[in-house]
Each structure stands twice: as C-alpha cells, then as structure tokens.
C-alpha cells in the first residue's frame, strides 16, 4: 500500500469492521460462556449474602493491601500508573470519545489534549519500565510466557502510535493515523483470545471471589 490516504481509508473502513466483528463475536461468546456456566453448585448452607461482599472484593482487590505493597511496590505503583494512563487516554481523548459516540451513541466530556498527551507520555515510560522490570527480575522472567510479551508489545505499539500521531512525528498524517488505527485493530482482534480479556473479566472474577467469601461467611 503505497498511498497513505488509501491506507487510512482501508483502516477506517473494511479493516475496522473486521476488527470490531471479531472482537464482538469473541468477547460476547467468552463472557456469556462465563456467565451461563456460572460456578459449581455449592451445597453448603449459606452463612451470609453474596452481593455486597462481591462488590466489596471488586474494590478491595483493586487496591493493594499494605503487605502486597511492601513486597512489590514497583508492581503496584507502576502497574496502577500505566493502567490508569491507558484508561484515561482511551476514554477521555476527544477523538476517541467521538469514535465511541459513533459506535455506541454514548458520549461524555473529554480532557484537554495536552493533559492526555502528558498522560500518554507517562504511560509509555511506565510501560517501558514494566518491560525492563520483567526482564531483570529473576522470578518474573521465569514466569513470563511468549503471550506476555505479545500482549506487552501490542499495548505499547498502540499507545506509541497514538502518541506519534497526535504529536505529528510521523508524516504524512494519514499514514500516522492509519498506523494507530491498525494497531488498535490488531489489539481488538487479539483481545478476546489472550489475557487481554481481563479488561472485561477482571471485575466478574473479583465479584465471584467476593461472593464466595460472603457465602462462606469469610471476610471479603
């Protein structure tokens, strides 16, 4: 594809439809499967409610307890940093809001571009830090799988291409924007089939955990 505008139109048209289709098919199937399957029936007598403890765990598991923080401060701080940065840029950059509105009809106020730009830069640095940490930490290196690196690369490329496009570092712009959209499409397609699924399942999992604690009468 030699023509940047053709490339952009390809990513904005057919490729985007394809990515959205694969993503929606895969993700809906996975979530429905989880929900319908439910959990193994528990025949013991319930010692407490499930809903509240479930929700409480969604919260408490999201904030690291002091013990975890002491053992792995890097994981907690940097992990939080880039996750937050990713969500902020994804949900509060005006062009993204326009895109989401066109897809779902939902819209909300955005953040000024320089704020998003700064957050993106911090996210990029944090992402590099996580990779360095993963490679230098003995245990982490042992437990890392190829999938972990694949997921890291996808996330990093997605954020990086967005940063380059916004700051107009790659020229001409249709090429830069096309590359960013292409990264997003690969991300969407891969999402339902890798651990990226946690974007949608993390809270379900935490709720199940908390609910089962609640039922057993354990502190959630």
């Amino acid at each position: 594809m030699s023509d940047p505008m053709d490339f952009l139109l390809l990513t904005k048209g057919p490729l985007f439809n394809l990515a959205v289709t694969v993503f929606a098919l895969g993700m809906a199937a996975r979530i429905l499967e989880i929900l319908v399957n439910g959990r193994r029936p528990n025949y013991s007598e319930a010692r407490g409610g499930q809903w509240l403890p479930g929700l409480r765990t969604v919260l408490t598991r999201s904030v690291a307890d002091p013990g975890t923080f002491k053992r792995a401060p890097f994981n907690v701080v940097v992990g939080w940093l880039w996750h937050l940065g990713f969500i902020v840029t994804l949900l509060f950059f005006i062009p993204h809001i326009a895109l989401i509105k066109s897809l779902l009809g939902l819209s909300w106020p955005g953040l000024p571009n320089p704020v998003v730009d700064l957050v993106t830069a911090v996210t990029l640095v944090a992402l590099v830090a996580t990779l360095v940490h993963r490679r230098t930490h003995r245990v982490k290196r042992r437990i890392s799988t190829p999938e972990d690196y694949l997921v890291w690369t996808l996330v990093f490329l997605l954020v990086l291409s967005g940063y380059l496009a916004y700051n107009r570092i790659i020229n001409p712009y249709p090429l830069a924007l096309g590359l960013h959209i292409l990264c997003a499409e690969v991300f969407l397609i891969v999402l339902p089939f890798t651990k990226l699924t946690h974007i949608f399942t993390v809270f379900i999992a935490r709720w199940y955990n908390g609910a089962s604690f609640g039922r057993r009468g354990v502190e959630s």
Partner: protein
Amino acid sequence: MRVFEKNPLEKGLAERLREHGVSRRGFLKFCAATASMMALPPAMIPAIAAALERARRPSVIWLSFQECTGCTESLTRSHAPTVEDLILDLISLDYHHTLQAAAGEAAEAAREQAMRDNHGQYLLIVDGSLPGPDANPGYSTIAGVSNYSMLMEAVEGAAAVIAVGTCAAFGGLPAAAPNPTGAVSVMDLVKDKPVVNVSGCPPVPMVITGVLAHFLTFGRLPELDEYHRPLAFFGQSIHDRCYRRPFYDKGLFAETFDDAGARAGWCLYRLGCKGPSTYNACATMRWNAGTSWPIEAGHPCLGCAEPRFWDAGGFYVPLSVPTGPASDYLLAAGAVGAVAGAVVATKARGRAKEEAAVRQPVTVEELEQKL
C-alpha cells in the same frame, strides 16, 4: 529544464514592463507580490527580481477534461498579479477553450499551431480527470477527440505537465465510487514527463499562479511532495497552520454550528474538520483576495486537496470515526457471539448434569476390589 530559450531575442520581463511604463518601484512591488504568491520568504525578493528580469514567456496550453470549470473560475480570481497581467505578461496562454476568444476549428488550430511551434518546451496544464485507456472514450470528448488521445498527444511535446485541481491530480469527483466513467488522474497516465499536482477543489487561486510564477521565475519546477504537490504550498497541513489550533490544544471544541463555542471561534474537529489530514495552503494564502478562508468562516475543512476525499467519510463526521457501519457490525457480531457463548455453555452444563444423573456411588470396598 530550460524552456525560456525559445526566442533569445525576446526581451526579459523587466524590460517589457518598463516599456509599458512600469517603473522600477512597480517592478519591485511586482516581485514582492510574486514572492508572496510563491510562498517564498521576502528575503528571496532580490533573487526573484534578478530572475524575473531575464524571464521569458513560456507558451502554455490548457486542456480541460471532466471538470466543472471551478478551477478556471478560481484562477480568474487570482489577484496578485491580476489574471490579465498573468496572461499577457507572464505567460503566453495559447489555448484555453474557456478563456480564449477563438472557438471551434480556429481554437483547435491554435492549439496545434502552439504545439508545433513550441515543441518540447510548452507547459501543459490540465484540469479535470479523464476516462482511462480502458474506459469508454465517449464519456468525454473535445472536437470529437477523446480526452485520452488529446492528452497523450499534447504530453508528447510538453516540457512539463501541471495537473490543476483534485480531479486532474487524483481523479476527484468523477473518480469517486463507483467511478462510472472509469476516470483516472493525469499522473496515472503520464509517466515520462514531470507532473506537478496542484490539488484542491478548486485549488487556491494564488497557488495556481504561484506554481506558474515559480516556473517562470526560476525556469524549473518547484520541489514536490510524494503526491507531486509543490512543498511550498502543500508542505504543511491545514491543522498545523490553523489559527484555531490553540483551541484544539486546549480542548475547546464547537459541538454544533451555532453553539457558544462556534461563536467564540473554537476548533471544528468535532464538526468533522479534516484539517489534520489535509495538506493545503488555505490557512495562510486564504481565499477571495486574502479575505478569509473556510475555517475562518466557521466551516470545517472538507479535505478537498487529498486523494479520494469524496470517499473518505461524511464531511461532518469527525476524522476519528470509521467510514463504514461499524456499530452495526459490533451489534450483530456481539449478538451472534453471545448466542454462541450461551449455547456452548448450556451444552456444557447439560453434559455435566447428565453425568451427575448417571453417577453411581462407589464404596471403598468396591474400589479396592477393582485395583
């Protein structure tokens, strides 16, 4: 490329102007206007003056194919210098079937004459796209000659070809899907001669004359980008030179055409502005003798100087929004996926239940016997 050597006895421009009673100051002023028109810094004015003093009139042949005459309309609104000056003093416009007085056979004869006399040296300007060699030539003809053969014949003896307007440069409206006439651009057909694309629908008038002035002044074509567009005019995007950019950077956007933001002159991104992906000179050269330009008038950029702009999604749809019906795909695929997931899970549950139903209790003794 030296096209001005055709008649060494012909006088240079400065001398001709002086004979017409134009003073030295008038000439310097003309040079200042020309520099402005070529988007060159004023520091270049002495060099431009020196070059223009020696400049000779190139012969220009202008062919119009599948077009709306908007580009010629635009050119005749070029104000610096006036088009009369341009035609009479700077170039020798030997054929332009809309502007010339002659018509019919006389006009075609003038074209053939100019092509013969200036073979290898004339400048060929084209506006409009044309049916490609494989398309039905009957879609567009002039004096019974197909656009394709007229172009190829004229290109043969041209020093360079300037494609004026998005149609000539990229196919434009005639080539928009489903492209019923099989329209192609000049650059699709001309491979062995330099092609300059002056895109825009229409191009900024000063850009058309600016390219001519550059050719005339320096005797060569200006530097071009990857789409063969002169960098001096197309080197930066609308967005990069837009005076509303500070609002974009601050995140202040007009949401509708008459809200408070629109009245305060905020950025038009959410109203579909294609300025970030469009490369043209509107933001600095402006329109209507430098009065204003679309974004200053409150309308988003349509992206008219870029290839395929007619097919690049709605004019009032933000640049980040996909061009296809992606939300339909999202919904349909989501529904199918949900059903599939539910079916698979239900089946699995059913199997688990069946197995639970036929499960036989086993005692320790029985197990020990089996082992």
